[in-house]
């Protein structure tokens, strides 16, 4: 009789142990760290859809884990939540990668604009240097020189925004700078023509 009771107790203990499957803490922490990294990589700005998918998957995984946590130990099974945490981590990594790529793309786009703007400013400065000066266009040349100083200041401001990672702001400012630099080149040509024609 005692032997039978012992066997039942052993069987029950084994069942309880089997039922108490381990919670996927490591996977959960990895997924949370992945999402934090994506956030740091500004995925909410540069890859919002990918970030949202990763965040939703992480929340769903946590809910799945919570559901199992609430169950009687014998019936717990963390297989599904573990799998979801792993997926959430992969999605978070993907969001971070996408954000980095998009940020780099925008950065490159603004870098190209900055290069073009610098070229336009250089052209304007060179044209101003070459412009025939003297009686007839002195005032215009002086004024254009002032404008060029302002354009250069605006350009420096845009570069500072760029260096601070404010790419959209930098882009808008650089576009305005380019427009003005090009109009200065035209003004110089007109001033030179006036001088030539007296």
């Amino acid at each position, binding site marked *: 009789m005692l032997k039978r009771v012992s066997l039942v107790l052993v069987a029950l203990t084994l069942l309880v142990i089997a039922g108490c499957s381990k919670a996927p803490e490591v996977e959960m922490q990895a997924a949370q760290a992945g999402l934090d990294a994506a956030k740091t990589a500004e995925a*909410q700005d540069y890859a919002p859809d990918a970030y949202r998918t990763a965040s939703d998957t992480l929340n769903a995984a946590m809910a799945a884990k919570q*559901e199992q946590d609430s169950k009687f130990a014998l019936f717990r099974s963390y297989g599904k939540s573990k799998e979801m945490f792993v997926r959430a981590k992969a999605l978070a990594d993907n969001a971070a990668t996408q954000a980095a790529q998009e940020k780099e793309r925008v950065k490159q786009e603004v870098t190209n604009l900055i290069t073009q703007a610098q070229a336009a400013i250089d052209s304007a400065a060179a044209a101003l240097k070459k412009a025939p000066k003297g009686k007839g266009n002195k*005032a215009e040349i002086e004024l254009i020189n002032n404008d060029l100083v302002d354009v250069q200041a605006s350009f420096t401001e845009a570069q500072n925004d760029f260096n601070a990672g404010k790419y959209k702001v930098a882009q808008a400012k650089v576009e*305005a*700078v380019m427009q003005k630099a090009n109009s200065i080149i035209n003004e110089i040509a007109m001033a030179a023509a006036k001088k030539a024609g007296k």
Partner: protein
Amino acid sequence: MRKFIIGLGILLVVTAAIVILFVGAPNPPVVSLERAKQMLNKAEKAGALRYSSEMYRSAEDLIKIGWMEMARQNGRLAPFRNYKTADSLLTLAYQKGEDAAERAEQTIQNLQATVQGERNQLYDELLEWRESLNGTLAKNDGEAYWNRAELAYKTSEKLMNTGEYEEARSKIILGKESLRRLGKIVAEYSNDEAQKLHIWGRWVEETLEHSRATGSYALIVDKGKHKTYLVLGGRLKMTFNCDLGYNPSTQKLFAGDGATPEGKYYVTAVKNNGASKYYRALLINYPNATDRQRFAESKARGIISKRSRIGGLIEIHGEGGRDRDWTEGCVALSNRDMDRLMQFVSIGTPVTIVRRANNWP
């Protein structure tokens, strides 16, 4: 019989257990969860992360808490499940998300309206100043400020188009500041003009009186109106348009300042075609004694550099009619007008140059 009853009992217990465990359990608030998530998504797209971030974060947290509560209830035995708290939390999350979206939309709308209003105001001011500048001799001094304001205005447009309203606003403020400085320059110029108006009026009166008394010709140049008047016997005989020095708004102080002198002069030489670089010319006696005194005082007071020279060779010459002030300080008429003028003017003819002749002619 006994075994049958025991078996039946076990069957009934198992069936009852199944019914209790899986039937009659309340439904989890999945719909509320999905609605809350969709609203949060909408809020994010509306710009809530930037413009109503606190509300957004609050909605986000409520979704998480509600979701966890729902999961906790899911884990319980059916008879013990209660989703009321989860549902309330998710409903609250939906409302918070909705509020966040509305707040963001409203903030953006307000910002757009405010910044656009300020831009329109700056644009109007730019137009007004353009007109004012075109009609003033202080144009060159103010032009740089006007251009700076215009650049700020154009940059603000680009910033607005990318949704950077605060940055756009700071540019508009910069533009307004430039126009304020422009206003200061023009005001200083106007004050200076108001103070000297009676002096110029007296010069004009004296010139007319001399012409009347001697029955001779005299020239009066009104810089403000860009006109050169030929007077005979105190009466206006002819009017000519003229261009001035590229810095027309001030009294001439030294060589190279681009200003046309203001004072009472007379013709010292008549240069016909070939003798002048600018078709035909009338040389005047700048600098006169008053100019020399002013030059010396300005040097002594440090207003101008010690190395400055007073300059000279101020003429009324041809090659004018360009509709802009371009000379180094001379008065330029069109060649045709020079031909007409030269018929009446000779050495000794008085030439009075004023910034504004007030009520004459």
